[in-house]
């Protein structure tokens, strides 16, 4: 077991990830505290998504240490399983299970991983669907829902595992503009409820208003990390300035 500082949930130390000759993450250090909302921004190919994906090991890191909730990620399958159960993940492409109803999409994890009885899992699913605003869609299949509704189901599915950390990988990038707000609204509420969140997003409004900390990444490195007001009004690094000039 790892010594925890404060209420640290995620800790990365000098993490390196390579894809062949391409280095996606270069010596990344990061610490996320419980209840914190951390937003990661940066140009495409900067390693933002890879950073998230190493935390729950959808990508294996090549060097460095990753500690989640006091458990160090090793090759041990059991610790990996434990960590994944504690982290909810929301993908850009939703990745709902198209052959299962919305209800079943949400209850599968609690039932199979947490061994929750079916009835209890279904009650939980309805609660969560109510929370994301679509309780009436429970018996439909993902293909029958709009993109925004699908992404909200995906959030409910992740929440059903009662995670200690929620990770969002560009959750609104695949959505039509009119559906972005319904998803952001759910995320803002979630942050308000004190959920620890690690978000990769291009929604600067969300970053500015909700984030406790903003991380700017470029070429696999964390270039700058600061509070939102400071980040947007007084960026220190040249690369950050250049990026903000482009998008704002």
């Amino acid at each position: 077991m790892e010594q925890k500082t404060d209420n640290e949930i995620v800790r990365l130390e000098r993490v390196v990830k390579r894809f062949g000759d391409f280095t996606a993450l270069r010596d990344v250090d990061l610490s996320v505290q419980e209840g914190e909302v951390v937003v990661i921004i940066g140009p495409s190919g900067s390693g933002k998504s890879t950073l998230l994906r190493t935390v729950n090991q959808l990508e294996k890191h090549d060097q460095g240490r990753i500690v989640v909730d006091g458990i160090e990620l090793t090759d041990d399958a059991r610790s990996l399983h434990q960590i994944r159960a504690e982290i909810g993940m929301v993908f850009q492409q939703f990745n709902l299970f198209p052959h299962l109803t919305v209800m079943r999409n949400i209850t599968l994890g609690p039932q199979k991983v947490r061994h929750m009885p079916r009835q209890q899992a279904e009650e939980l699913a309805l609660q969560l669907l109510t929370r994301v605003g679509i309780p009436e869609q429970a018996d439909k299949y993902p293909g029958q829902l709009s993109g925004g509704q699908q992404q909200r189901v995906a959030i409910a599915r992740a929440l059903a595992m009662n995670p200690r950390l929620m990770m969002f990988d560009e959750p609104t990038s695949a959505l039509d503009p009119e559906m972005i707000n319904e998803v952001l609204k759910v995320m803002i509420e979630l942050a308000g409820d004190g959920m620890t969140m690690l978000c990769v997003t291009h929604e600067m409004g969300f970053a500015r208003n909700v984030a406790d900390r903003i991380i700017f990444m470029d070429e696999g490195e964390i270039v700058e990390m600061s509070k939102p007001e400071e980040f947007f009004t007084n960026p220190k690094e040249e690369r950050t300035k250049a990026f903000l000039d482009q998008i704002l």
Partner: protein
Amino acid sequence: MSAVTAPYSPVAQRIEWAQANLFNSKLNSLVSVVTIAVGLLIAFLVAKFVLFDANWALVSLNRRLFFVGGYPGEEVYRIWIAVFAAAVLASVSYGIWVGRMRPYVITVGIIAVIVLTFGLGTNLYIEETPFTQEITSGGQTSTISGIDRELVWEQGWAPRWLYAFSLGLALPFGGTWLIMAALLALLVLGALFGKHVLSRWKSSPVLLQSVGAAWVLLVPAAVLLQIGVSINSWGSAFLDILIFAVGGFFSFFIGLVLALGRISPYRAVRFVSVGYIEVVRAAPLLVWLLFATFLKDELGPLGEAFSSISLVYRVMIVFAFFGGAYIAEVIRGGLQAIPRGQYEASNALALSSLQKYVFIILPQAIKAVIPAIIGRFIALWKDTALLAAISLINTLEQAKKILAGQTDIADGAFFEIYIVVGLIYWSVSYILSRLGGAAEKRLGVGERR
């Protein structure tokens, strides 16, 4: 031509549809007229042969041989039990999950009329009269004796051409008639029961699991039912269906294991799976069947153990392993079609590897390849025709024997006999293809993405 389907409504609409789809240009009109003319001609020739020219006596007399071969008569009830179980299961499943009763009842009704009424009162048998005859030739008188065989046709209410509709299979009144009546009634009652009673629990996993389990157990149960009946008496359509059912049943699971083996993280498992598939598919089934027939102790104890079991079981094993190699490739295709996101979402939910495949990956992969799997099953079913080459009496071989033995009463009725052989192969293939269609529809619910 557009893909508009003919609406099921008044004549005027149909004429309109025909004008719009068949006669909307000069070329199209010409093509339509020629096609219709050729179709009518073929239909006329077939009808003329089936109803007037053909001699169905040989088929009618040998219908039992066609279906069960040399199976002992007092044991045939075992086959009926299996048939009834399959009928109940199929009709109840249809009622629950498809539930379109009108076309179903009409189809069963038509079959019932043909099978149950056209043969009523008809009796067909061979009268054997011993005879002796004195022949005088060249001053010498010799006596020869023998049996004179004559076909007796006692016509029932239906004229001969109507009787021919049932291809001579129309059953005369008797025990079999009652069984067939019960079977057909059960097909309707089972579907009604499924639709009006059981479908209320359509979404209940208990119902789904018990019906699923019944389907899975059907084939092993049908085989276990045969215990005690000499394997040597298994023959004709019954033998073909049994070998296909057992071989096909296990080939699916073998294919599943091999497909998963091909994508295993362990190199040795991958290597064995690929090697197996490549070797098995590289030789024709007939060669494997001949190996199974002639293998003695060439492979040491393994070969001895294999050759010690009955040929029919050896053939079932060959069918299962041969079919499995093909099914594996089909399922692999389905696995490749699953987007990476499905694996990632399962992993992110902390599902175990087994859970990931059982609940997420395989249901989608198999659903995607149902048509191809059904295609493999149909091919495997028709491969039972090869059994004639290894001295098993399959439907084809039985047909040859019937022809060889009885030329004197139905001289040259080759065509009639082979029509029935073709119909037996066709009907099982057709049932398979409809089952596949139903499964596809049933599983395709969440398809719209």
